[in-house]
């Protein structure tokens, strides 16, 4: 799987240099919205990698190599984890070092959990149907997540529960559960795809 990750890193650093710099720049700006954007954007880099694989028909070649379906799928998840971890780490460092920022470590970690949840929900569709069709679903997921989180926040506010505590506890649980469920679904989804 190291070979697959290495290939993805070479491709992303060559094709997405401008956007990678942009992500790091946003992560460094000590503002929650900017850092949050950087972290969410980092979670989308596996989609970009899948799109480049489709363009070069890499999957056909990978099928001839000693890689299992699990390794191919896991490499995309690992790429997402790596990118989110780097964006979050840079954001955290910036929040701690640069004075005057509004982003707290807890809010940045919550953003990382939300990013990983979105990735876990959408990756199986990207792996099954390709990026072009999977992108439509990604938009639907973002809209649904935004609507449902706003409704949930309103409900929590009305019930008098402390929102930050709920988010701090709920987001990691949600991210872990989503990823644990998403992985086996993704293995099956990719196996059904023909190249």
């Amino acid at each position, binding site marked *: 799987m*190291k*070979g*697959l990750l*290495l*290939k993805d890193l*070479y*491709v992303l650093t*060559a*094709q997405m240099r401008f956007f990678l710099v942009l992500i790091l720049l946003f992560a460094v700006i000590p503002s929650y919205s900017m850092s949050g954007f950087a972290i969410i954007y980092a979670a989308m880099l596996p989609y970009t990698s899948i799109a*480049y*694989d489709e*363009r*070069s*028909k*890499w999957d*056909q*070649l990978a*099928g*001839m*190599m*000693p*890689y*299992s379906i699990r390794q191919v799928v896991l490499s995309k998840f690992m790429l997402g984890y790596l990118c989110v971890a780097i964006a979050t780490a840079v954001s955290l460092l910036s929040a701690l070092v640069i004075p005057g920022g509004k982003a707290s470590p807890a809010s940045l970690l919550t953003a990382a959990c939300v990013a990983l949840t979105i990735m876990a929900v959408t990756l199986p569709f990207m792996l099954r149907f390709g990026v072009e069709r999977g992108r439509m679903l990604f938009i639907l997921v973002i809209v649904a997540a935004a609507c449902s989180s706003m409704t949930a926040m309103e409900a929590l506010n009305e019930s008098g529960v402390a929102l930050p505590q709920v988010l701090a506890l709920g987001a990691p649980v949600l991210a872990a559960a989503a990823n644990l469920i998403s992985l086996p679904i993704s293995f099956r989804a990719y196996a059904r795809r*023909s*190249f």
Partner: protein
Amino acid sequence: MNNAIELSHVTKTYPTFTLQDLSLTLPTGCIMGLVGENGAGKSTTLRLIMNTITRDSGEITVLGQDNRSDAFRELKNDIGVVLDEAYFPEVLNPRQVGQVMAQTYTRWDEATYAGYVDRFALPWKQRFKDFSRGMKMKLAIAVALSHSPRLLLLDEATSGLDPIIRDEILESFSEFTRDESHSVLLSSHIVSDLEKICDYIAFLHRGRLVLCEEKDALLEGCAIVQCTRAQLSDLPEEAVLGIDQSPYGVRALVRRELVSPVFSPEKPTLEDIILFLAKGEEQR
């Protein structure tokens, strides 16, 4: 292990195409040419052998291993594959491709790879997307030969290349089979390439295996006879494998041993044999 590849009654059906009841054996140490028109089922056969598409029925054994077994994934370290296009990410250069492959194949040999890249005069730092088709295929072949494979599967690896590059690439395949444990299955519709290097010829036509024979026996066993329409009836019916009629006369592909020397049978090329057999199948 006597056979590198064994296919037994393999069938694969698509909505518009069926590979029917394919049985094929590639003995270890040999080069087999898989010839056929575009869409005859050559690429499907190679993908079935590598188990990247599921078959409807039949059995496939590669290097002594059932290709649906768990152990087959590890066995892919022993199989070098070149597809009809190279399919490497376009931004990678040969150095990066080598680094990725070093993490992919357990027996990756950096020195062998470097040797092939230099021998094929490939620029180490040039991106794959800036390569010509010939250079792309050479890189794919360099990769396929650099992880100590015992079996090479080549899908139209020489098509679209100029004769000088084709010759250079065919030479590298011949070198590969100097080791008696090495085998090659080479699909192509350039029959002259197959005639140069193959020990066995398999001819696929519209998803059916029309013939699979030792090349030399095939060339020696067949002959071409030129005659008039009236003389055609003098040929034994069982001797005639194919007929090509024109206003100027008749050319017939025949079994040499069944035809009298009076007809002055001429030696055919492999291309002649394939064309006659293809026409015969069309007329069925």
